[in-house]
């Protein structure tokens, strides 16, 4: 084959809109990291290529990602369904190996040192493998996802790495695996599960916000109302199981509200974790109730009350951006390094301080376009494998974007998950690159049926 022909056949079917959106977001990311790191005293033109600053490293990672992406686009689509299960096993093994080889970075033991200063976070990579495995599983010919058994297996595939991740003290990354429920919902998981999930979340938030006796009364009133509404069914038609259901749900809710939530916040979570969650709903957590804090105090260490410094500074940075922002490199919060972790988890603040509401709107617009484009891609697939995989990509991206942005604007507790393609970090950038480009590869062959 001539090279010209190769190029044409390779680029044929590639969804260039997604590719350009991806490139745009990575470039914005490099600019944001540059703004966060910029130091007029040491900056000169060569700083971009020296490799001692985060933005130059990110450019290097981008270069690596381009190579990897090219390889993926050049590869054969059939590889992915073929190796999906194998890769999943490999991913789980990697996750397990962390317990042996793991290196402690920022308090989470979830990294494998690769040498040369580079580290790999398997929990991050594992998202790809779970996406592939889930796609593989759901695209089986004899698949009937209405069966409880299949649903349970799918959940297990998605949640196994999450469990391992929790054991590695990477709760944030574990939460990401919840995003696979969106995919499963698309593939037929009963909607009631999502509704129950949301209701559960609402109950927990309500527990934090509302005084506990008042909430118990409200719940009892709701239960009583339900019994009143269904009185005919229960008492006339003698359907006692409805009554039992209502009562057991009521007992469950009150139990969560009165015992489970206080137990988790006071005895399971560390003080700072509880404080983060409380401050996300605008409340203040009293650390004197916390078991870990008390233990620490007893052992003679002073307990400093954790405060919401990160979120406060992050909100100040975003809020002070105003409508049009302060301008490129003129953000005082950014220049003064007031926002911790600004080039990784809080990279959104750098952008919103410099470019204001307009900048944020355009930036989120790009993400929104990307997500809709991926859903569009997903829906045009002939093969279930590609569709499920594309939905996985959309869900993961959506979850990352939502949690990360909400965390910086104070709508979600601070958990360290990166903003896709924008946050500084090779591991994360590479993961999203592979994730997206496998999808692009599969999409290029959308006429094929892959299993």
């Amino acid at each position, binding site marked *: 084959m001539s090279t010209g022909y190769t190029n044409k056949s390779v680029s044929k079917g590639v969804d260039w809109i997604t590719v350009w959106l991806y490139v745009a977001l990575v470039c914005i990311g490099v600019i944001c990291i540059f703004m966060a790191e910029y130091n007029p005293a040491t900056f000169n033109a060569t700083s971009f290529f020296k490799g001692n600053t985060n933005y130059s490293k990110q450019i290097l990672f981008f270069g690596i990602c381009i190579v990897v992406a090219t390889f993926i686009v050049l590869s054969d689509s059939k590889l992915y369904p073929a190796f999906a299960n194998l890769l999943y096993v490999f991913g789980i093994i990697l996750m397990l190996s962390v317990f042996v080889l793991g290196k402690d970075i920022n308090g989470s033991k979830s990294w494998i040192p690769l040498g040369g200063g580079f580290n790999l976070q398997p929990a991050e990579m594992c998202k790809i493998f779970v996406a592939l495995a889930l796609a593989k599983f759901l695209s089986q010919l004899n698949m009937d996802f209405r069966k409880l058994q299949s649903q349970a297996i799918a959940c297990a595939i998605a949640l196994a790495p999450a469990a391992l991740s929790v054991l590695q003290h990477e709760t944030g990354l574990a939460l990401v695996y919840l995003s696979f429920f969106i995919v499963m919902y698309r593939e037929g998981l009963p909607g009631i599960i999502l509704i129950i999930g949301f209701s559960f979340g609402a109950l927990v938030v309500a527990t934090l916000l509302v005084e506990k006796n008042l909430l118990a009364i409200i719940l009892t009133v709701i239960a009583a109302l339900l019994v009143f509404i269904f009185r005919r069914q229960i008492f006339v038609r003698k359907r006692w199981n409805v009554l039992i259901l209502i009562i057991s749900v009521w007992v469950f809710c009150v139990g969560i509200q009165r015992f489970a939530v206080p137990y988790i916040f006071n005895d399971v979570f560390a003080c700072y974790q509880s404080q983060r969650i409380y401050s996300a709903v605008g409340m203040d957590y009293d650390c004197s109730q916390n078991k870990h804090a008390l233990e620490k105090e007893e052992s003679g260490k002073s307990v400093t009350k954790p405060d919401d410094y990160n979120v406060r500074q992050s*909100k100040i940075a975003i809020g002070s951006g105003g409508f049009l922002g302060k301008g490129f490199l003129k953000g005082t919060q950014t*220049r003064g390094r007031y926002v911790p972790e600004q080039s990784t988890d809080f990279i959104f603040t750098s952008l919103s301080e410099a470019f204001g509401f307009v900048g944020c709107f355009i930036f989120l617009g790009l993400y929104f376009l990307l997500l809709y484009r991926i859903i569009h891609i997903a*829906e045009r697939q002939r093969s279930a494998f590609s569709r499920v995989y594309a939905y996985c990509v959309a869900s993961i991206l959506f979850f990352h974007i939502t949690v990360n942005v909400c965390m910086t604007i104070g709508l979600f507790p601070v958990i360290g998950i990166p903003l896709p393609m924008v946050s500084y970090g090779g591991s994360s950038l590479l993961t999203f690159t592979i994730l997206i480009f496998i999808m692009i590869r599969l999409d290029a062959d959308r006429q094929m049926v892959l299993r």
Partner: protein
Amino acid sequence: MPIYNQSRNRIIQVIFALVFLLIIFQLLNLQIFSSEYKLQAENNAIYRKVIYPDRGIIYDRHGKAILENTIMYDLMVTPSEARGIDTATLCNILGIDTAEYKKRIISAIIKNSRYKPSVFEPLISDEAYARLNEDMYKFPGFSITERPVRAYPFHAAANVLGYLGEVDKNFLKNHASEGYDQGDYAGMTGLERSYEKVLMGQRGVKRYIRDNKNRIQGPYNNGLYDTAAIAGRNLYTSLDIDLQVLAEKLLQNKIGSVVAINPKTGGILAMATAPSYDPTMLTGSQRRKNFGRLVLDTARPLLNRALKGQYPPGSTYKPLSALIALDEGIITPSYGYPCAGAYYACGRPVKCTEHWIGHSKDLRTAIAWSCNSYFCNIFRMIVDNPKYKNPRLGYLAWKQYMNAFGYGTDLHPDIPGEYDGNIPDTSGYNRDFGGPRWNSCNIVTLGIGQDRMLATPLQMANAMCIIANKGYYYTPHFVDSIENETIADTQFVGRYRFKHVALGHISDSAFKIVQLGMNDVSVIGTARGAQIDGIDICAKTGTAQNPHGKDHSLFVAFAPMQDPKIAICVVVENAGFGATWAAPIASIIMEKYLKDSLSAKSQANVDRISKADLIPAVIKHWYFKQDSIKQAKQAQIINADAAPVFQNNLETKPIQFDPEAEPNRKDNNDTNAIKTKQDMQLPDNKNIRKPNKQ
């Protein structure tokens, strides 16, 4: 694959859209609808640095700077940057050891965090400054910063010039729009306070961006909003610093005050008060400590007795009485009174120091010999003047005269804090005598400047100006002119260029005869010791009885009689006769001013007077007690094995002594430093610490 799931992609899209809307809504809320974040970001990141201009300089009448600025240097350290430095050299230059070095670094970190510069050694010596400057490259993290400090080249006129102090809440409230900030310094007393607006200049503000550790990142917006500092303007005063220094020297070891005024302009030539303090004590790093000590000092060195000391004027009042009587037409210069040693007309006799017949044969001699009977009598005649219906009205007429002479009223000189003395009102007497039943006899001692009459040295000096000028005066003041005078300044200083002629109706002949009488005081009368060769001086002594102890020694004068150039008032508390202490002090000062030099006799007098110790025993006892307390404390410190750290190791060397030469001494490992301190505080040591020279 199940077809019904198709619709779910819409639901998912809707969920995505809703979440994005939620985010956009919160962004709108943060970025557009709430303004607090912008403010918080500014508070965070913009550092307003106030640039202090140099304060104005104060000059004396010869153009000598008596209050100026100098730059002193502080050695600063930023602990986080102070790594790998040549500690040995640095310690050597500063004369400290490495343990002290480490201690200071640690305290700097505790005080100011390791990222911010803190003072390592304040106000370093010139020599250390020179050596440090040379070797600064060896000490990364260290820097030398300038600190402007007020300097007093003559170490004099502390209470006139005043001191700077940190502004308090009240001050900030009262001067809200004048650009003061917490921690700023402003003039608290004296000229520094009155002319604060002139002296302070205009502050500049520079804005910097700072980071989360308070390090300066660079100018904010390239200095677009910065304002430059404008230096304070200078003051040109009438003070004669040589005279001031001389006056302060003469008042050493005494309690009292000297005020000398140029009667032609009202410009104050010297205003000394004792005890006083060295004004440099209240600048620099020891300010707080010294201030505490001065405030607690029972002799009150911070009190400007020239303005706030209220004394019975005693006989110094008599020339005024004579003028009033002459102007009211009650007496003629030839009026005489037969005094034989006391005034008996009001029952209880008022004693007179002179007994020989003829010392009060007319007004001129009565002034010369300061006859008490004579002046009791004419005071009664003033009050009982038939022109007025009753003694109360006569008294009020007298009071009006006195107020016109500046007694019992505020003079408003240009340093704050004056008291107005006391010329009692009739209401006071009405109350005390049970209604308007009192007569001239009840208050007869007012006639000799006693009773309830009180005046400040400034008022007495000012009254001398009036007599010297034959009827007019300018309000006593220090500042003659201000550099680049503005309209506002002219309004302020204008009061001191206004000629007060309230007593212009008193005839020149009346003034003439009183002046002659006062001249006689120094020629034949009570103050012969105050004579100056070749100059006619007009003077009046005063010996004021007071409830505090021995009589106050007072002396007022002006000279030369023909063309008065200086009017003076000297008060020495509890020193006895006016002629003994106050008169020679005044004489020396006038001689110095008029002749610009002192005769050998006067020079000897200066030494004698400045060495004389007239501080009352009560106050001496207080000092003694203070020293004992300090000694007790010192002993405790030594017991606690925490003797003060001296920077110079030589001082704490154990004493080497020869047991044969000093058989009574035991080797108790005493150190020199502690020993010297003890020496100073031994109770039997009569060498009392002087409050004004420390």
